[in-house]
């Protein structure tokens, strides 16, 4: 007789085992370890919530302390390997296999753990790729998530940092899994229900609020003149050129510089309302001056940003907020918007090769991908037209074919040299070396060359859409690679020809005087200025203050 309810039965077993330590759905903080030991089984697929922003850090710390003779060989399927306790899971044998998306501070430890076989790697994904697999072949048995508030029934308020909680819970709760939430506070009534109680099995009031990394805060004080020059070129040579209204920005300083000169340089060029009106973007504090100056119509966010909550609540015309007035973020939806509804992705990278492949892998460090590859990929399923999209498509196809499709603009900004004079333009990505060392089937590439449409360095813009051969592509890239070996290896004649054709454009070709690239152009030159722009609503984390 076939059994069709085994997962249900197992789920019930786990719930029964846990009922000893729970009071209804509520579990005391000091019983959390017992709870985890009750609901977990060796070999389980476990999603420990945590990405590049929020972390279920209390549950992570507790999971790293469970008895590894009882709980072992877990298969972690989670966005981020970010905390020390994430590494401890593998160090202690509690977990063995890993499918993930992003690693921050643990990038180097992760590479070592792969090399020594401490971690068996499934794959490195982009965010939505991993979410997709949650409902396909990597469905979690147990999800350990984080929320701000819970009521006694288990209704959760995940608030501004909702991020990926809904997608994790969806995949787990509706496939007979167990959902455990750590919350900052248990209340009588939650401000709003982000996750309904019947998708939540247990709630623990943690001994501290869940950790959030202020990853998207860039101090304007550290924006350099070179970055401002690149920002000017990008605005004039790409934003204005294509009339880009819907876009996503990466987290680097060059894009922060763009945000900061929209109200000055962009204003001078008369571009207000014509570019950069709709965004798929985390709440970058550096965008505050542009918002306050009326540049921005609306922003949907992957997550929140530390200190921005009050500001966003007060600017509900711009941000997505609930009836309770606070931001609602959603990583899956925002990534989808980035993929299908943005005409441009523009972000920084650390290395680019002669074909335009771009990577953030540096020797001995695996940074993962996060969401950039989705933002930075042409969506072949897109069907709605915009001027920017069509113009890019026409440029790529010489404008002859009757069925010319559009192209997403995918722009990589990079200074020719990085810290310690390491060249950013290279013959071969460090990623390839790393793949060989770690025996990876697939070298981690952030954005493939065939998706990239423009490369911006302080020397100029290379428009790869206009290149008609591999040689032209290579010379276009060399032509903006400055004084790096790659740059100095250019063929001067070809580069000159590409410049005449507008494939390469230098600041002077765009009518930009190098000497205008001054910090005076920044609408805010410090975090303090951002606070002032926000009318005191932005409350930066202490580490960014100098007052």
């Amino acid at each position, binding site marked *: 007789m076939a059994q069709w309810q085994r997962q249900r039965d197992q789920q019930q077993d786990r719930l029964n085992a846990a009922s000893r330590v729970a009071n209804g759905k509520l579990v005391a903080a000091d019983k959390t370890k017992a709870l985890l030991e009750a609901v977990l089984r060796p070999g389980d697929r476990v999603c420990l919530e945590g990405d590049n922003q929020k972390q279920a850090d209390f549950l992570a710390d507790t999971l790293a302390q469970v008895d590894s003779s009882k709980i072992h060989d877990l298969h972690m399927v989670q966005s981020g390997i970010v905390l020390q306790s994430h590494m401890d899971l593998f160090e202690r044998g509690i977990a063995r296999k890993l499918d993930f998306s992003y690693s921050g501070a643990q990038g180097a430890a992760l590479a070592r753990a792969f090399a020594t076989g401490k971690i068996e790697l499934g794959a490195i994904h982009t965010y939505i790729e991993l979410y997709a697999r949650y409902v396909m072949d990597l469905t979690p048995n147990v999800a350990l998530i984080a929320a701000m508030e819970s009521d006694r029934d288990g209704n959760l308020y995940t608030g501004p940092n909702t991020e990926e909680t809904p997608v994790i819970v969806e995949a787990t709760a509706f496939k007979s899994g167990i959902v455990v939430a750590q919350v900052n506070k248990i209340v009588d009534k939650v401000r709003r229900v982000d996750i309904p109680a019947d998708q939540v099995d247990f709630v623990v009031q943690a001994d501290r609020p869940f950790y959030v990394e202020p990853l998207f805060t860039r101090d304007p004080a550290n924006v350099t003149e070179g970055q401002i020059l690149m920002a000017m070129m990008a605005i004039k040579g790409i934003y204005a050129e294509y009339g880009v209204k819907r876009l996503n920005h990466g987290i680097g300083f060059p894009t922060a510089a763009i945000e900061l000169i929209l109200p000055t340089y962009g204003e001078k060029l008369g571009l207000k309302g014509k570019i950069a009106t709709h965004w798929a973007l985390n709440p970058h504090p550096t965008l505050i001056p542009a918002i306050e100056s009326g540049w921005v119509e609306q922003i949907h966010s992957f997550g929140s940003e530390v200190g921005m909550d009050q500001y966003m609540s007060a600017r509900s015309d711009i941000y997505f907020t609930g009836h309770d007035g606070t931001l609602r973020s959603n990583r899956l939806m925002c990534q989808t918007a980035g993929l299908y509804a943005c005409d441009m992705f523009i972000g920084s990278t650390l290395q680019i090769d002669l074909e335009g492949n771009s990577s953030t892998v540096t020797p001995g460090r695996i940074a993962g991908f996060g969401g950039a590859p989705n933002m930075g990929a042409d969506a072949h399923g897109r069907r709605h037209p915009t001027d920017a999209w069509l113009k890019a498509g026409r440029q790529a196809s010489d404008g002859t074919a009757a069925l010319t499709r559009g192209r997403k603009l995918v722009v990589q900004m990079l200074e020719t040299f990085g810290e310690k004079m390491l060249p950013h333009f290279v013959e071969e990505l460090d990623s390839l070396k790393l793949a060989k060392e770690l025996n990876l089937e697939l070298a981690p590439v952030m954005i493939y060359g065939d998706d990239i449409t423009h490369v911006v360095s302080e020397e100029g813009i290379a428009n790869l859409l206009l290149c008609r051969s591999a040689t032209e592509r290579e010379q276009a890239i060399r032509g903006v690679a400055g004084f790096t070996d790659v740059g100095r290896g250019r063929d001067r004649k070809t580069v000159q020809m590409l410049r005449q054709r507008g494939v390469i454009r230098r600041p002077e070709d765009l009518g930009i005087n190098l000497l205008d690239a001054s910090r005076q152009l920044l609408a805010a030159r410090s975090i303090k200025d951002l606070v002032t722009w926000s009318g005191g609503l932005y409350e930066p984390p202490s*580490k960014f203050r100098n007052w």
Partner: protein
Amino acid sequence: MSTVFQPHEADWYEATARERITGLLDPGTFLEFVGPEQRAMSPHLEQFNLTGAFDDGLIVGGGRLNGDAVFIAAQEGRFLGGAFGEVHGAKLVGLLRAARDGADKGGPKCVLLLLDTGGVRLQEANAGELAISETIQAILEARLVGVSVIALIGGRSGAFGGGGIITACCSRIVVSQHGRVSVSGPEVIETNKGVEEFDSKDRALVWRITGGRTRALTGAADRYVKERIEDFRAAAIALAARVPAFTIETLAAEQHRLAQRVQQYGDCRDSPEMWRKAGLAEPERIAELSDDAFLAIPQLKDAHHDAR
């Protein structure tokens, strides 16, 4: 909030030492002494694999402030943290001695000290420490003959270590919110006493303890100004007009003033505790106030004194 962008006014924090001098003095009046073309550079840095600066991070010269002749010295806080080395310090000492010697011969009666320093440059620690002591002596000798010395602090390196002591030896002190004045830096305290004593990464705490607002409200600085160079200039003009004489009466008053502060606030661990005692509205939010709101606090005026 205005939707039209207001261009930045030149601010002190952002400016280089040379830009501060230019903005502070009457236009076109600055004349540099031992200028960069003389290449009076530190001979000690090379052995530490450091390149120097043509002015060794300190610019000295003369000029006019609101028509009156002044001497001026400015530290470049971005070059080695504005720290005192041998040449750097000697230029300052020379300037102050020139003021002292020239005071009764028609020379400038005012020296503007644009401090922006982490203290002693460790690569030349002994020379730096001594230069600080010599600077203090020279300031006091100049004050004795009627020269006023005005400290202006609002740069990224603040006035730390010996720079803090120098500050408090001046006739008057001007600070902005960014300006920190202290002896032991937060990192030094954390290293020596542990993170529980002073978490140097908690920058809001750093400013609550050492920042311009705390100094202004306790009377450790005489004038609080906004970040603009023109505000520093206005404060310098206003304060130079009348300074405390360096006499036994002044020091007796200072003894009393400082003793009172210990008595009143000696058990406080953080500045909001002090503001609560002082009866300020919203003691926790002093750092968050706009400059205008801060300047309107009545207790700020009460902190004015001549006991320096």
